């Protein structure tokens, strides 16, 4: 039901995401974005500097993923990254999780909660052990 069989790629974002690093980063992730329905998690835990160029690359990745019916999610943003994302109004565009594991798991739980509850109720219950 909630199992997703497609790969989820976790990518750590470099400490300093300035214009040059952002260009390199985009070059690194382009192959993962070019597959069908890409699923990426960017781990921002080590980011110390996030420039406008870095934010632009994150948005570009998300845009490319959406074009192929995929998604990009962010995980464990550092304080620096969180403040810059908030400042640039991009934090509301991404799903942001506390850990990379949570972010990866979120790809498999694609059903809305309400629908999942309905399915749980319909499932026949296993008899309790005596």
């Amino acid at each position, binding site marked *: 039901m909630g199992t997703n069989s497609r790969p989820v790629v976790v990518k750590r974002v470099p400490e300093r995401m300035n214009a040059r690093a952002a260009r390199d*980063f985009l070059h690194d992730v382009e*192959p993962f974005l070019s597959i069908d329905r890409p699923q990426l998690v960017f*781990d921002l835990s080590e980011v110390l500097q996030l*420039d406008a160029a870095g934010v632009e690359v994150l948005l570009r990745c998300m845009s490319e993923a959406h074009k192929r019916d995929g998604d990009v999610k962010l995980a464990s943003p550092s304080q620096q990254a969180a403040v810059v994302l908030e400042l640039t109004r991009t934090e509301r565009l991404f799903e942001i999780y506390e850990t990379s594991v949570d972010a990866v798991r979120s790809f*498999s739980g694609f059903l809305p909660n309400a629908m999942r509850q309905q399915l749980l109720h319909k499932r026949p219950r296993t008899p309790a052990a005596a």
Partner: protein
Amino acid sequence: MNAIDIRGLILVDSLPSGRDGLLARTPFAMVDVAGMSPLERIAQTMRRHGVSPMAIVVEDDSAYRRRRPIPPGMAFRAASPDRYWRLAEGTFNDLAQNGTELVLVVRLGPYAEIDFEKLVQFHLAGPRRVTQVVCGGRPLEIFCLSASRRNDAASLFRSQLGQCRSQLESYEHDGYFNPLAGPGDLRQFAIDVLTLNTETQPAGTEVRPGVWVGSEASIEKGSRILAPAFIGASARIGCGSLITRCSTIERHAHVDCGTVVENSTVLPYSYVGAGLDIAHSVVRIGHIASLRRGVTVKVSDQKLLGRVSSTGARYLWKAAVSLPARIWNGIFRNGSAPPPPLEDALLRPSSALGVSACDTKVAGEFASDLMAVRRYGDQ
């Protein structure tokens, strides 16, 4: 009150309030809040109560002197940290030698709106040697000393206002008080000034109820200033921007087009880039203190937060210098190599991180079923 000679001695040191990283070593007492620093506001209050001139001792007054003429009647004396208290004591002795009868000693940090007339009356009614102001049971570093009591003053200054050889008499202060110990207090002070919870008011013209604007401020068409708000002298507000919820844009600051400033303070000479969202924050040149997160972070990108460009000529010069690099990038960077295939990309060391995509720290954190899904997926 003018019958006796009363002088003020305001002490400003850079250590206690500048430790959070937002202002480096600049004390909050010298940072503009709605057009005037707490230091200037205290000096103004003293003048209003007939206490003048003031001798002000600061550890580093260069930041203050550089951008602002010293107001008449204020004498600045600067000292290095090791000579700071000795200079304060020396200044007190100079005042006493020049015929002063009472000296009001105020140490900033904290900002308190003291009724100095009542304080002096309380001191003289005793008569008392040294009177200390107390607020809600907490002693403040505000004293009224008889100038003839040099030994008392000496013991006070040598203990960094910690103790006095004579018994201290307490004067209870029930007016406005702000500890000014961090960006949150600075922000609260701005809110209190704009909502008129303080005696002191914003330093500007009230162009409509609750909106104060300093001289030569430029507010472009299409921008909205919602009361209460303050726009400092020579500040620039770009088109389409919104300043709201007790925000203060201090002198010479520049808020670029389409930016929302909500419940925030933008300190002097700071540039805030276009299309940003500044909320519950204090912004300095290249720094932002987020009050919700309780952190101060450095933002290196000048497009986001930076220093206002000083002149148009400098801007043109920078543009001219960067032109060849832009042309070079435009010609040679467009034809970049196509991305490598997926298999190679997984194993190739990342140029940004130096490790391959398959070799991440977080890989070990995944549950085994997740790893299986990844390995045997439909891709």
